[in-house]
């Protein structure tokens, strides 16, 4: 029990120090009525020299390579942690979280659908490099390079397991988010991932209140639930998961063979360790077969239903596009539903453009959302269907394994494995005792 005096002294020191938080008015800001000083915008990063973009790409490449080496060869959690700190500082606080591979997904999508948009080379590199490394080495990007993952990893204090069944449903969010981000990027409406990046406000030490609160919530949850954004929300992680399934090399808990000591069962804060599984429970087998057949037949239905519903919501989803919003505003003004104007509608009217042209353009965008909605909805239907099928398939495992898709390659599980200790020459052959 801490002595009361120590707590009191600690708090007193905090309060004294907090005087600084008021931003001691010893040096008040200049009176810029006389000058023409312009306050810099606090919410967007200042432009940087072009060469630094290429430096960033090189640093990314180096970090990915080092991460892969540390995770797969060195198998050192400590080293991975240090690299993770570096990535947090460099890609997070120093570069203020932009450009990041997660958001670059949208740039790439937009360049595919909009012939007038050329994705910068560096953005393309940021998008492709982690995918390439994942294809070969597993999710080493998530382990020690992604600043969003790093900040969450850092705040994890008291691990609370998320039930496996809940994880299945929660991971659906990431797929929906990816689909929505692709849809809105493809239609040129919005970069959803950037708009709702929860941690960018922390990296820039400023931001809108809503995003700050969102990030704060993720970090608070992250105190207890390992990397909630990475596991359940990250749209880029969806792609990494699929590539990681087929990666040439991957994380293994044991450096050689699994001795089934079970010590690693609770080692992973991200629920990525799969326990050995024996045969299908006999009493469920027939029922499970039927269920699987039904789900397979249901898959196209789910895709159609998802596509139909999402395309049906096109008039709402299309509102993400500023042209559609403007057209609806002009429409409201023209039909007397509102009496005043907005800056956007006043500016439009000042251009002298015909309103019918605007309506036609908005209708065209809605048509895009109709098509895109079908694809998006079908994708979500497909994901849901595949998940249900996957949950109906019983996989046998003999050893403890890190899930190919879910493992974030953090390396925490290594120290739990006695074979690892053997490798590190810290333990003799196991005697069955701890």
């Amino acid at each position, binding site marked *: 029990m801490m002595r009361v005096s120590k707590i009191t002294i600690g708090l007193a*020191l905090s309060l004294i120090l907090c005087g600084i938080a008021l931003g001691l008015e010893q040096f008040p800001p200049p009176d810029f009525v006389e000058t023409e000083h312009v306050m810099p915008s606090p919410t967007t990063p200042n432009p940087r020299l072009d060469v630094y973009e290429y430096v960033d790409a090189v640093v990314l490449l180096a970090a990915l390579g080092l991460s892969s080496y540390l995770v797969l060869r060195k198998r050192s959690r400590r080293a991975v942690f240090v690299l993770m700190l570096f990535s947090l500082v460099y890609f997070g606080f120093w570069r203020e979280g932009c450009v990041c591979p997660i958001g670059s997904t949208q740039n790439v999508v937009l360049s595919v659908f909009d012939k007038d948009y050329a994705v910068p080379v560096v953005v393309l590199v940021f998008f492709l490099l982690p995918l390439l490394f994942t294809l070969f080495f597993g999710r080493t990007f998530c382990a020690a390079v992604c600043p969003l993952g790093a900040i969450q990893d850092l705040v994890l204090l008291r691990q609370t397991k998320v039930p496996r*069944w809940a994880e299945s449903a929660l991971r659906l969010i990431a797929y929906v988010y990816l689909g929505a981000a692709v849809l809105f990027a493809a239609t040129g409406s919005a970069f959803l991932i950037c708009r709702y990046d929860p941690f960018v406000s922390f990296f820039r030490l400023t931001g809108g209140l809503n995003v700050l609160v969102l990030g704060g919530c993720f970090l608070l949850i992250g105190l207890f639930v390992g990397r909630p954004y990475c596991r359940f929300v990250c749209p880029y992680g969806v792609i990494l998961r699929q590539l990681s399934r087929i990666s040439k090399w991957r994380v293994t808990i044991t450096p050689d063979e699994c001795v089934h000591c079970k010590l690693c069962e609770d080692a992973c804060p991200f629920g990525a360790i799969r326990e050995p599984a024996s045969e299908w429970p006999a009493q469920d087998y027939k029922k499970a077969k039927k269920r699987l057949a039904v789900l397979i037949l249901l898959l196209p239905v789910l895709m159609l239903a998802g596509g139909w519903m999402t395309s049906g919501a096109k008039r709402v989803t299309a509102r993400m596009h500023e042209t559609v919003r403007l057209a609806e505003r002009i429409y409201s003004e023209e039909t007397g539903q509102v009496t005043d104007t907005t800056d956007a509608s006043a500016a439009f009217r000042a251009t*002298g453009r015909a309103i019918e042209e605007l309506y036609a353009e908005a209708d065209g965008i809605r048509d895009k959302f109709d098509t895109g909605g079908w694809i998006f909805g079908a994708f979500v239907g497909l994901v849901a269907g595949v998940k249900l099928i996957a949950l109906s398939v019983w996989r046998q495992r003999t050893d403890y394994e890190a899930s190919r898709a879910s493992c974030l390659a953090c390396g925490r599980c290594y120290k739990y494995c006695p074979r690892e200790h053997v490798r590190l020459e810290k333990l003799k052959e196991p005697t069955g005792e701890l």
Partner: protein
Amino acid sequence: MSESGNDNSSLNAGSVSPWYRTAIATAVVGAAFSLIVCLFMAANYGRSRVIDTPAELELLALRAEIPNRPDDEQLLSRIRQLDLEIRQKRARAIFRSRRGSYLLLGGVIVFLIGAKCADSLKKRLPAPPSQDDRQKVQARDATWGRWAVIAACAMLVLGVFSLMAGSRVDFADKGESPLSRYPSIEEVKRNWPSFRGPNGSGISAYTNIPTKWDGETGDGILWKTKVPLGGNNSPVVWDDRVFLAGGDANDLQVYGFDANSGRLLWTGDVTRVRPKPGEEPFEPYEATGYSTPTVATNGRQVCAIFVTGDVGCFDLTGRKLWQKSLGLPESAYGYAASLAIYQDMILIQFDQGGIDDGISELIALDGPTGKVLWRKKRPVANSWSSPVVAGIGDKFQLITCADPWVIAYDPPSGSELWRVECLAGDIAATPVCANGLTFAIEPYSKTVAIRTDGQGEVTETHIAWTNEDGGPDVCSSVTDGEVLLNMADGLLSCLKVSDGTMMWEQDLRAYFYASPSLVGEKLYLLDDKGTMLISEYKPKYKELAKCRLGEECRASPAFADGRIYIRGVESLYCIGGAKADAAKPGVPATAPYPSVEEVNSNWASFRGPGGSGISAYSNIPAKWDGETGQGILWKTKVPVGGNNSPVVWGERAFLAGGDANDLQVYCFDTTSGRLLWTGDVTRVRPKAGEDPFEPFEDTGYSTPTMVTNGRQVCAIFVTGDVGCFDFNGKKLWEKSLGLPDSAYGYASSLAIYRNTILIQFDQGGVDDGISEMIALDGPSGKVVWKQKRPVANSWSSPIVAGIGETFQLITTADPYVIAYDPADGAELWRLEGLAGDIAATPVYANGLVFAVEPYSKMVAIRADGRGDVTETHIAWTNEDGGPDVCSPVTDGEVIIHLADGLLTCLKVSDGTMLWEEDLRAYFLASPSLVGDKLYVLDEEGVMSIAEYKPKYKELAKCRLGEKCHASPAFADGRIYIRGFENLYCIGEKPRQEP
């Protein structure tokens, strides 16, 4: 670092490092510090968002005052100071936020270091589950996982459906246009929409124009408002709006003023296209300034052009619709041609350069969008004359004057109709038309009269006459069709229209910029000093009055109903009174209640003036077909249903509607049928434990008809909720009288006496003693008086009848007919003689009140009694039955009632039956009289029009195509009928003209 979640305290006993507590302390300190910093930052944020907001709102309000007080140094100084203070506070807040962010980051890092170290220093051993559970757990996880995915999908589906249920905007559905795209002839004539009014004639449509005022003493001046920026353009007026333009080197602006108060409602900025780098900056001709052309409006858009060639168009609320730059015109004295309007086309006479330059044009722009509709080159030099659109025969001509041609065009297409070569020099006067002639002026030289029925080049054939006794420089002519008046340098000359011979000349020894105007038989001339000379002009000039403004004037006046609007060099003046009572001149519009004549010329309550059911107008349509649309002027869907009848006042028609969710009042524009506003009346819901209210099916929520007095409009609903609104839809008050205890639902319409709302609130049985007569003050809703009534629930409506020199409020119910003094509620007389469910409203004529007992009798009562007149004042009783629902109608000689399709006509003098006619239909609407015709509207929406004296003789049957329960309302040349779903206006379509 080990992060196992299990805690085996027994195994971990004795394994805590000595640095553990230090690590914990560090974490606590870091957390506490971070929390405190967070609180400070939150307070900083809240302060900048909440506490500092009033100062910013104050700054915005002060800035909005600048146009009204541009020279107020105190105001400007306060604005600067406030602006500085706000900026300083904002900068400090940002600075604090930034510092706090760094401190917070530091605190969090300290916390994390401490917490991580503490966690790593307290080793925990892993505790995996037993083997036996594993298979079950895995199977359970799979099952629950599937259900969780299904649940997540269900939530997604719900989310998508809720999105789909949101508001949908279909751009293809433009909805009902708020107004017709352009005004009718009548609308245009009623207003002053462009330079020199309708057709550019300079003739006032109104004769009730003031003839006496003094701007220096304020006598006769209704208001005077400073115009923010100067200009020489003349006011234009549309309904209750006056428009001007103004400009200087920095701004080009259009202004909208309230015609009644002079308040500047809005300022519209027209962006000025600046000269390119290297180009000479533009300097306007001093006498012309930036804003000489007069604006033009059609009641939907108001458009202005400036000397720079910039054009801006706004709607009547000041919202900018579009703007254009035509380029800086090459004009010797600065561009000065005013705009003209044809339907929804803006017409611009854009003459510039020399004849041979070929750069002069006539341009037509679409009013709502600014698109160029057509553009015609003109073989003329720069001019300062304005185009006019004149109705000639059954078509229109757009007539223009310049050097050397007078050219007429067809406005819709821009094609040239005719041209005459007859002018030279700097043409500034605008042409005028009358009697098939167009009169064009060559300054200081001549007046030319041209016949307007030509085709092509008609110089040789269509000049009717030329008068070469000089002609005005700037001022345009004015003509009444007999004489033509010219004003040139103070010399007023009068020419005969027929041959151009001079009738007389008068040297007025003054200088005039403003063009002369005609008001009835008077001539109005406004000189540059602001003095208006009012005179007769036939057979000779005879000055009647001189009225000074006290300010110099360059612009021509605008005329409206009882008013003149004059622009001085600094201010806009309105001369006249508040809106005059049309029926009784002299009663100011701000009078709290209307005159008798006003009431009689409107349909302000159930069955019109006095509840008589008699139309004040005889020009009522007698032929229409709702299914083909013949004779239907407009038809507008009523949002929520009801059985109440329309009431009409001026250009407004009112209805009420109600359902379980809403009780509403609707206001429609009688010209277009557009729903102008909807007023919601709050429904007082049943208390907890009370049964929810279910109205009687035939009655619904909204059967009582509303009332209006031209100032307020009031409605009562079956729930006993009452709401009162002004004419703009602003709710003045609402009240709940409580749910009336009424067998078939409350259905008594309101009555109105002056500005007192009269409510016959009969409920319960005779002995319950809960029936009341309630009088509420129209503007405030306060109870003026209240009288208990010894009657049972009834469905009859009260009437206010003028009897002799006074008014009586007459009511019928079981068992009494009671008359009150509407001013104070004093009971005048009562008569016991009715029984049952009294629904028909009484009527009055020739000293007799006629009350009906359903299916039983009609009683005629002399209305001159006092006290209980049961034994003494029954004139006659006819016991051959009586209507159930429909109220009777009488012209003073006969009285007609309608019961279950049986029309019965009785003599007023003694109640004997004259005739009966079975109409073989069912009627809920009460019969009405229009002149010597009877109008009866059946439940199927078929109106039978018939003569009723000496016998019934059907003249016509007109179908609406929709069922009707409500009685019709009659106005000037119109009938308003409420069907189940729509409100119809039956009348002639006005001819559409600019």
